[in-house]
């Protein structure tokens, strides 16, 4: 087989696999630009026109924002942003304590933290519900934010990173008269920016994707977050497919816009960044 043909075949195979992966996404995007009644038109029987947004309309986007999707996005950004900000502080402090301080029961507590992120959320949903309802937080934003702030995986990410930072930095700063909070802020945080970004994105996306818990904790549906809001586009008798797809596209787009500029740090952070002396 001549090399050029061989190469062509390989590319063809790659393209075919890529097509399979991209197709659902592409179909979602183009369907959001079609009128609702035209969505399934070219699929049965299938014609290539099914792969092109034609007829093209922005009706779906106009409709979802008319139905209050803007507020839903704002709600979710508020919840996810609060969780990220508080989560970075709480989990960073916890990771710092585990990495630098000796205290009785440290390894046991660390063990529990590690186990906590292996538990599926469904397993703790009901006990958590009763705690939150005792606190009177049902239908309150606190019910969404507070339980998600402490995150075992984020604590562990910080712990692992801080543990790798040479202890000499801590001791040098200590001798200079800096207290442990000052050392965290002036030395450890600047060194751990990739970890902060990884953990922050993780917390953000965790909230962004939350569906079951907001559904349970916000039964009145006065304050809707994005996943719950999206489900509302599908009612019992009719489904506004084009609006559903439009909402899905927006839902996917926002974390992507966040991730792309920070991707470099995200990968670096998860891979455990090295420290340059």
């Amino acid at each position, binding site marked *: 087989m001549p090399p050029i043909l061989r190469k062509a075949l390989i590319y063809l195979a790659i393209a075919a696999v890529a097509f399979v992966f991209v197709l659902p996404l592409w179909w979602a995007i183009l369907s959001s630009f079609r009128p609702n009644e035209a969505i399934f038109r070219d699929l049965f029987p299938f014609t290539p026109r099914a792969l092109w947004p034609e007829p093209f309309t922005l009706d779906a986007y106009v409709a979802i924002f008319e139905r209050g999707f803007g507020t839903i996005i704002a709600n979710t950004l508020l919840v996810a942003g609060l969780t990220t900000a508080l989560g970075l502080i709480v989990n960073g402090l916890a990771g710092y304590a585990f990495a630098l301080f000796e205290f009785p029961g440290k390894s046991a507590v660390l063990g529990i933290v590690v186990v906590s992120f292996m538990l599926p959320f469904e397993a703790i949903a009901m006990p958590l519900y009763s705690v939150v309802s005792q606190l009177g937080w049902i239908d309150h934003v606190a019910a969404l934010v507070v339980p998600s702030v402490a995150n075992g995986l984020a604590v562990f990410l910080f712990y692992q990173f801080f543990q790798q930072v*040479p202890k*000499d*930095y801590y*001791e*040098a*700063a*200590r*001798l*200079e*008269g*800096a207290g442990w909070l*000052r050392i965290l802020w*002036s*030395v450890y945080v*600047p*060194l751990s920016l990739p970890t902060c970004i990884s953990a922050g994105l993780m917390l953000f996306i965790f909230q962004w994707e939350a569906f079951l818990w907001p559904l349970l904790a916000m039964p009145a549906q006065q304050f809707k977050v994005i996943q719950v809001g999206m489900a509302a586009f599908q009612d019992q008798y009719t489904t506004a497919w084009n609006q559903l797809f439009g909402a899905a596209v927006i839902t996917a787009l926002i974390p992507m816009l966040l991730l792309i500029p920070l991707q470099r740090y995200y990968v670096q952070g998860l891979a455990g960044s090295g*420290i*340059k*002396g």
Partner: protein
Amino acid sequence: MSGLELKGLRKAFGLTEIISGVDLKIADGELVVFVGPSGCGKSTLLRLIAGLENVTAGQIVIGDHDVTKVDPAKRGVAMVFQSYALFPHMTVRQNIGFGMRVNRVPKPEAAARLEKAAALLQLTELLDRRPAQLSGGQRQRVAIGRAIVREPDVFLFDEPLSNLDAELRVQMRGELAALHARLGATMIYVTHDQVEAMTLADRIVVLRAGRVEQIGAPLDLYDDPDNLFVAGFLGSPRMNFLTAEVQPDGRLRPNGYAADLPSPVGGLTPGRRVVLGCRPENIEITDDGALTASVKTVEQLGASTFVHADCASSVVLAAELRQRWSLKNQTTLRFNLPTASTQLFDADTGLRIRQ
């Protein structure tokens, strides 16, 4: 500036005792070097003085203050770490000024101190660089600069030159000696390198297994060691040791030889086992030498020549000669240990036997 005193200092990690009772008085302005093999506790001792480890028992006094329980930052000590511990995200200026920022030193004063230290250490041009952009020697100077601006009572150096290459180490050694002369500050310097200890110290503290073996001026320790360990630790190649037995006539017979040597110390009990110590530069290689050895290797360094030879009883003898030497391997040479420059130690306790 002030002196420092350690009183019965002990440190144990769990059941393992690392420092077993150290008493030491360091005068104001003195440069004292802690030296010893790895694991002897010299770094731990320094960290106890710095306050980075808690004392198990004993007292640390700096100036007139008992600082045993004082916070590390308030002891008036500054430490230069082996790794330098420069904060990688800060410039040289920020690194040196970190402590002053933390302690809210007024800005004009902080700037003045920084400029002064930078000029002293030739760092002025480098103030806006980050540690990663500096050479090893420059990083070393920044670490020293960070210590200087704190104007401490006592400087602590933890093996500061061990990350540098040989040439730079010699250069930095010179700079440190000059710095000590200029600042006149009390300094404690930890190293495992006996050459650094010999060249820098006003006094050397030789440590082994958490105990002080001997304290004294470098040449005093070299010329007049208290025990086998100190004798063997200082000097390179190390002192030659031949085990011998005291004969009825008071002369000494080295193991494996039929010849007797005069003893540098009189009145020894016959039958006592002793160790003869003689430094390589004092070994006399002569045709009428009383002892023989088989040449193993000859190292020609130009100015001097080191001969390593196998003695009887499988001891390796090292001799340093001023003249060039062209003996082939395996040749037998005859040598003498000049009585005046031979030291005697007890073979069982390792302690020096003095007249």
